[in-house]
């Protein structure tokens, strides 16, 4: 699934009327090497790509095809939708659409996104109606009221010999129930007003994804702010929990407490900042990594509110919830940049071949914190190994993702069940690596591990999730996770797909849903898992 970047370089060069030799000379490589690049036989990235882009007077992202790649992936998802999948698409249709009519392609992708959001809204509503205890209670009240009114009215109507006291009793009964019903109706209306507000919050995660993808998960403003904050903190002492507590107290009057009960009796989290009482509370079992990271985040959010606001300013975030979640994501980024200063982190990562456990002990950090920071090492001219990042809950639902250009990571729902991110749950707390191959031949190294919160009582349920880093096999040899593996030996690759619907492998024992691809013939040995076609969108 790698973008044919060489073709784009070649096209652009020809458009500008440059010869291969002259471009090679100005970017400082041999013409034969440029020829290999243009024929997609050599990878290009980093400083060289920047030089080529500059010489060709074109944006690096455009040249690398990242924008286009993302659009293509969005279209893959849209075309895989059961509503349209049975249409007779030609094999190259998506690619051509993106190349020739990018705006129309973007329109399709956006409409599909809006459609899936609307569908999940509808699902959320249906779930609410089925399971909402308040709604069923209101319904019960309505039925009771109607029953009493109907029964009393029938008595008044049918019984000729009612005495005055009895008549009065049933009239009052009707009056009383009518008042109750009016209250119930008001409640019900209020309930639906609230529901419609809540349901608009289905998509903020998507909006934040867009923000992160648009900036390639690198935010220079936040990096600068983090550097400044680190220097401030260093004047008080070494960067650790004690110093962070001291500076929070001195500069913001925040008291930090470890252990003891939370302010809110039923609070389920491990830490909580109460802005009113200026108190930061941590569960006594919270790890050092959690304490350090969350204190850094709090200090960052209080001290660099401007940088956070400026970062969010230009983003298209449509709801208060999206803004709140984005501000939280940006706060995490800032904390990550404080805990792992960019240049030192990059140097340590390179020196240790991206050994996450080693980096954890150097920085007193958690697996997820390190993995998250590695994904952000995208400073132009000082890039680390490009990683994608995924997190899944034990039900398989993807809860966080940072995409890697070229690799199709599902936006939501489930990925391929063969991925290490799921395998890791079978071996909790142990890193699991795998070399995977997609049906188009692209290969990636996956590294996954489960992470879990410490519990504070025997009765408490364990909250665990699995975190996975993905990197192109081309870069994998720069990481410790490729050591001992023969990356040139394709025979042990694990054949995977992005998710069943987007995967073309017919012979997979793990398949749970039919593939979308119309050009793949039906299996001789397996009956379809789903009806081959749906009514909507069928060709006439």
């Amino acid at each position, binding site marked *: 699934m790698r973008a044919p970047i060489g073709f784009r370089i070649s096209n652009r060069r020809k458009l500008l009327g440059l010869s291969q030799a002259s471009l090679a000379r100005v970017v400082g490589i041999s013409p034969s090497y440029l020829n290999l690049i243009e024929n997609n036989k050599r990878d290009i990235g980093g400083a060289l790509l920047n030089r080529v882009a500059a010489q060709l007077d074109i944006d690096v992202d455009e040249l690398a095809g990242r924008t286009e790649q993302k659009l293509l992936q969005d279209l893959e998802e849209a075309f895989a939708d059961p509503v349209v999948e049975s249409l007779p698409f030609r094999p190259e249709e998506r690619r051509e659409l993106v190349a020739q009519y990018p705006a129309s392609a973007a329109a399709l992708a956006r409409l599909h996104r809006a459609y899936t959001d609307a569908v999940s809204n509808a699902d959320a509503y249906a779930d609410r109606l089925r399971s909402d205890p308040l709604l069923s209670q209101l*319904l*019960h009240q309505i*039925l*009771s009221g*109607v*029953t*009493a*009114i*109907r*029964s*009393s009215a*029938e*008595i008044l109507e*049918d*019984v000729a010999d009612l005495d005055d006291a*009895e008549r009065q*009793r*049933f009239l009052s*009964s009707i009056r*009383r*129930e009518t008042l109750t019903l009016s209250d119930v109706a008001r409640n019900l209306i209020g309930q639906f007003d609230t529901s419609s507000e809540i349901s608009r919050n289905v998509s903020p995660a998507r909006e934040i994804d867009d923000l992160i993808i648009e900036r390639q998960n690198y935010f220079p403003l936040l990096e600068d702010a983090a550097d400044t904050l680190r220097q401030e903190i260093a004047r008080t002492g070494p960067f650790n929990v004690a110093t962070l507590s001291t500076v929070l107290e001195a500069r913001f009057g925040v008291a930090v407490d470890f252990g003891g009960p939370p302010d809110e009796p039923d609070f389920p989290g491990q830490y909580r900042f109460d802005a009113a009482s200026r108190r930061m509370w941590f569960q006594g079992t919270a790890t050092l990594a959690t304490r350090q990271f969350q204190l850094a985040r709090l200090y960052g959010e209080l001290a660099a509110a401007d940088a956070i606001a400026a970062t969010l300013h230009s983003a298209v975030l449509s709801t208060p919830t999206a803004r709140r979640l984005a501000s939280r994501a940006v706060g995490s980024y800032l904390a990550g940049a404080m805990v792992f200063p960019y240049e030192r982190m990059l140097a340590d990562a390179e020196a240790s071949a991206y050994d996450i456990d080693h980096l954890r002990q150097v920085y007193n950090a958690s697996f997820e914190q390190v993995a998250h920071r590695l994904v952000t090492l995208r400073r132009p001219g000082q890039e680390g190994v490009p990683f994608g990042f995924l997190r899944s809950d034990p039900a398989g639902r993807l809860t966080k993702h940072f995409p890697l250009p070229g690799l199709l990571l599902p936006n939501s729902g489930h990925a391929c069940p063969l991925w290490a991110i799921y395998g890791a749950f079978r071996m909790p707390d142990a890193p699991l690596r795998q070399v995977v191959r997609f049906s188009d031949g692209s290969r990636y190294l996956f590294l996954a591990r489960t992470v879990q919160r410490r519990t504070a009582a025997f009765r408490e349920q364990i909250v665990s999730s699995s975190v996975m880093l993905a990197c192109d096999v081309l870069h994998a040899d720069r990481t410790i996770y490729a050591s001992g593996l023969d990356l040139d030996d394709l025979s042990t690759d694990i054949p995977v797909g992005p998710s069943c619907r987007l995967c073309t492998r017919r012979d997979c024992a793990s398949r749970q849903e039919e593939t979308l691809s119309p050009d793949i013939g039906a299996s001789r040995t397996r009956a379809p898992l789903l009806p081959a076609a749906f009514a909507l969108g069928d060709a006439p």
Partner: protein
Amino acid sequence: MAIDILIAEDEPSILESLDFILRRAGYTIGAVTDGDAVLDAVRRLAPRLVVLDVMLPKRSGFDVLKQIRANVELRGMPVLILTAKGQQQDRRTAEELGADGFVTKPYANADVVGAVRQLLAGHGGAA
């Protein structure tokens, strides 16, 4: 002090009208307003039939029905269940637990009286 019908219903207005129409139909009536009180009242008042609402405070109508059917002395007691419209599952559950009849809220008074007559006739002795 044996009675004809024990009503277990927590909504006062419904209880009042049920009490009225069943008395007018010629039955003697006793009433309780929560699930915990039913079994004791059945033993004490020895009714010929129980009209049991599903949604009762403290102990649900299902629980009460299960208790009645599990009790050697009481298991033959005819039970008429009041369910709410749209709650098909409630009706199936009550059937599985051995309910003898159903009336769905909101009901017409004649439906209740008719169901009671039928059950009592089926269990020997008309009113």
